[in-house]
């Protein structure tokens, strides 16, 4: 009796695992979802988000690209780091924009015991990642500074444009920011970058995206509905979602028809989309 129950359970589990999902994707991205690793392998990964190790692990999968966070040092070097203060994730403290690149090279991540990975620059990432032209890179521009905002934004935009041009990645990068003023500055630089606003509320983002004629809106899956994504698409605005890790969250996100999906579970999303 018990044996039969166990066998039935195993069979049910096995059949469930083999269940194939069928998706009818309708979006502005040729009806395909661009799959990106969130900060590399995602926030639940052993390797810290934005580390070279995490991004490389992500790109080893059959994935379209990777999203990462970008900040600018005091001497205008773009580096990959998420938080406002260095002390939350590294052995240093203070703003990235208050440190020089030389100082930041002494930083290492402290999230996991013994795994003292380094902070890297965007230049290092692009130099040492193979076949960069094959990938999509989403650059989440974090604009933390204590200095004059206007001057900082200008320097940041110049550094960004310079490095994108250096590696000829104009068509491979999407740039996202919470600040419309920064995106407007990039828009005015004359190049046709794929710019995404990352707003607190989707409706606000849609207004800004339409007003500035942006490429898209970035949103957490928790803060948007399928209908809102449809409205964005009706206005020729793409949508990038993040905040998915479980299989059910991935399915929910895919069924909302986003154009980009930044996942915290790279193998899980790849398995579903393939």
């Amino acid at each position: 009796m018990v044996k039969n129950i166990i066998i039935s359970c195993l069979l049910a589990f096995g059949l469930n695992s083999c269940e194939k999902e069928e998706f009818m994707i309708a979006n502005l991205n040729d009806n395909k979802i661009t799959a990106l690793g969130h900060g590399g392998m995602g926030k639940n990964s052993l390797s810290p988000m934005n580390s070279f190790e995490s991004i490389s692990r992500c790109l080893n999968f059959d994935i379209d690209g990777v999203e990462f966070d970008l900040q600018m040092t005091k001497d205008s070097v773009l580096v990959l780091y998420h938080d406002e203060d260095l002390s939350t994730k590294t052995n240093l403290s203070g703003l990235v924009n208050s440190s020089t690149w030389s100082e930041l090279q002494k930083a290492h991540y402290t999230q996991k015991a013994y795994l003292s990975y380094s902070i890297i620059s965007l230049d290092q990432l692009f130099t040492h990642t193979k076949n960069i032209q094959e990938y999509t890179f989403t650059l989440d521009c974090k604009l933390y500074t204590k200095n004059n905002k206007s001057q900082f934004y200008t320097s940041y935009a110049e550094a960004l444009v310079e490095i994108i041009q250096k590696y000829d990645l104009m068509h491979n990068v999407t740039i996202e920011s919470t600040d419309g003023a920064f995106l407007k500055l990039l828009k005015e630089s004359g190049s046709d970058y794929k710019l995404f606003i990352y707003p607190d509320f989707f409706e606000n983002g849609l207004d800004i995206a339409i007003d500035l004629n942006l490429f898209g809106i970035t949103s957490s899956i928790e803060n948007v509905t399928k209908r809102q994504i449809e409205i964005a698409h009706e206005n020729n605005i793409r949508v990038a979602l993040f905040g998915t890790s479980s299989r059910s969250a991935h399915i929910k996100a895919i069924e909302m028809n986003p154009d980009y999906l930044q996942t915290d579970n790279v193998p899980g999303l790849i398995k579903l989309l393939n």
Partner: protein
Amino acid sequence: MSHLSIVRIAFFLMLIMTLVNHRSYCQSDKLQSAKNTVYIELGGVAGNGSLNYEKLMFRKNMMSFSIRAGVGTYHVMDFTDNFNPDIIIPISLFGTYGRDHKIEISFGQTYASIVKADLSNFNPSRNSTFHSNFSIGYRYQKNTAGFFFRFAYSPIIQNNLAYRNWVGMSIGYSF
């Protein structure tokens, strides 16, 4: 820890337990004192977990001293997807007091050999460091063969400088 490494550790533990079981039956009739323990530790001094062997060195009344060596890992494959595991080896000296229910204290060193990007060329490079470990906690362990359990506050003193609060739980078998 990746699923692959968890499966591997579980496999080795099962293998060892199978061998241990055979031997412990031989000993049970004589009720010999158990001098060896194998256990899996979740969390603890190796970070995410480790497989450990502990050898009883000395026992008098309710007090005993033992030495443990373990092995743990974070990644089995490096970031270029080649087999190149992180290796973490904790070695500790334990002092325990009690009959079946004991309090324990330990200290030791942890050797960590971690594969990360060499910043000169961004190829995988092995980086070896030593760290101090310390623990204080509770353990259930009979003096004869049988089930072993421990739970301990086990901070890691990384690079012998940075103090990191941490805990560990162990389950195993003494023989």
